[in-house]
């Protein structure tokens, strides 16, 4: 337990520009706190997130990756998040099949109005990843300091 308390995970959050990134901004506007370990990368749409980016993040030392996009049906580009949903469903299932802890990767739909949901999601996700500890199953030792 002691170790877990000190362990600070590294989390990459891919947020779509139109909904989730704005939702994150709203969390800021409302001063809704979430852990510092969450780092946001802005993409135009969740459908821009290539599985390669996710694996790359794990390789370089991320302990958790979360993808956020507009709610299905609300995509700024009408259909982008529907493709994201299929790609990620298959990717998540595959990672789990390979024995990677399923709690390390997640997809959440966060609208521009859901600042509170953004903060809550990040708190919850960080907690789940912290409980798992360091990412060992998808680590690249060469990238570790």
């Amino acid at each position, binding site marked *: 337990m002691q170790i877990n308390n000190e362990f600070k995970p590294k989390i990459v959050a891919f947020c779509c520009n139109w909904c989730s990134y704005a939702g994150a901004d709203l969390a800021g506007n409302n001063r809704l706190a979430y852990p510092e370990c969450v780092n946001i990368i802005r993409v135009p749409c969740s459908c821009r997130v290539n599985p390669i980016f996710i694996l*790359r993040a794990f390789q370089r030392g991320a302990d958790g990756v979360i993808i956020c996009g507009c709610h299905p049906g609300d995509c700024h580009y009408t259909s982008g998040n*529907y493709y994201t*949903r299929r*790609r990620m469903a298959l990717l998540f*299932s*595959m990672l789990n*099949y390979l024995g990677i802890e399923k709690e390390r990767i997640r997809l*959440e739909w966060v609208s521009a109005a859901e600042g509170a949901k953004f903060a809550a999601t990040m708190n919850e996700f960080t907690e789940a990843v912290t409980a798992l500890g360091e990412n060992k199953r998808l680590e*690249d030792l060469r990238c570790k300091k």
Partner: protein
Amino acid sequence: MQKITCESLIEKACELIENGTVSRVIGWKKGEFDYDLTPAVFANADEIKKNFIYNDFSGANFSKYLIKETRKGEGKVLVFLKPCDTYSFNQLLTEHRFDREKVYAVGIPCEGMADIAKVKAAVGDGILKITSEGDELIVENLYGDVNKVKLADVLAERCVNCKSKKHTAYDELMGEDGEILDNNRFDEVEKLENMTEDERFAFWQNELSRCIRCNACRDVCPACTCEKCVFDNPKSGVENKAIADSFEEKMFHIIRAFHVAGRCTDCGECSRVCPQNIPLHLLNRKFIKDINTFYGEYQAGEVEGSRAPLVNYTEEDIEPNDAVKREE
């Protein structure tokens, strides 16, 4: 059913090349042994008569060769397609990878191909000659022994779980067409799914750690036909020539399988050619199984022009978080 023999294929190939229907033939050529056949292109009847071979080891799927071959020269290319090959053939057509007009496809029935590893396991090494007789293989070895094995006992994995004896594309069919089969190809995937996370990790760690990154699986894959592969592209973020870390193995195989998800025809070539005997088809099949459960039955290559599941969607698709069992 009419058994297709090497002679009947040679006859057909010669006929088509001599009457001008085709100018080249893609076929199998004998290697060092009866069982190591290599793909070859024949340009005239003499070559065909001399070197063309077809036997229980003619497993290679020629669909992929059509991409390069149809871009060369004039005239049509003759290709012999087993039922499973026609799926790859169709999938490549769907992806506009070659000009259908430049191909003359002859469908040939298939009762399954043999796996030399299984033959060796059954009769030992030192094989000199293998001939086929009815449903048996006659194996002669260095020491003058003659052993018989049933083809059914040494079938390649993909043939054990053959998904279809039905040709989905051809210009001409030799023999009779078969049916799409019920099969148990997802049993092994299911077995893995039923393991715990830790067990699965251990299983794949053990399998994938043997990967030597020879790229044979990619090179043979009829879906991996990219003009430039991401694994050869320094800008892709996944380029790496050799396995340097256990992560690389996983990265390579996940991305490879993901790139062919919804396009893979489950031909099993990846596992067939893997020098390390990694069951790579279990990755592809996982995607196929997931696609079937999540989005409805879909078999790449069954229908030319069909919309692959990853370039499609419905408004009610499963949520990724629910795609992974949460109850464990």
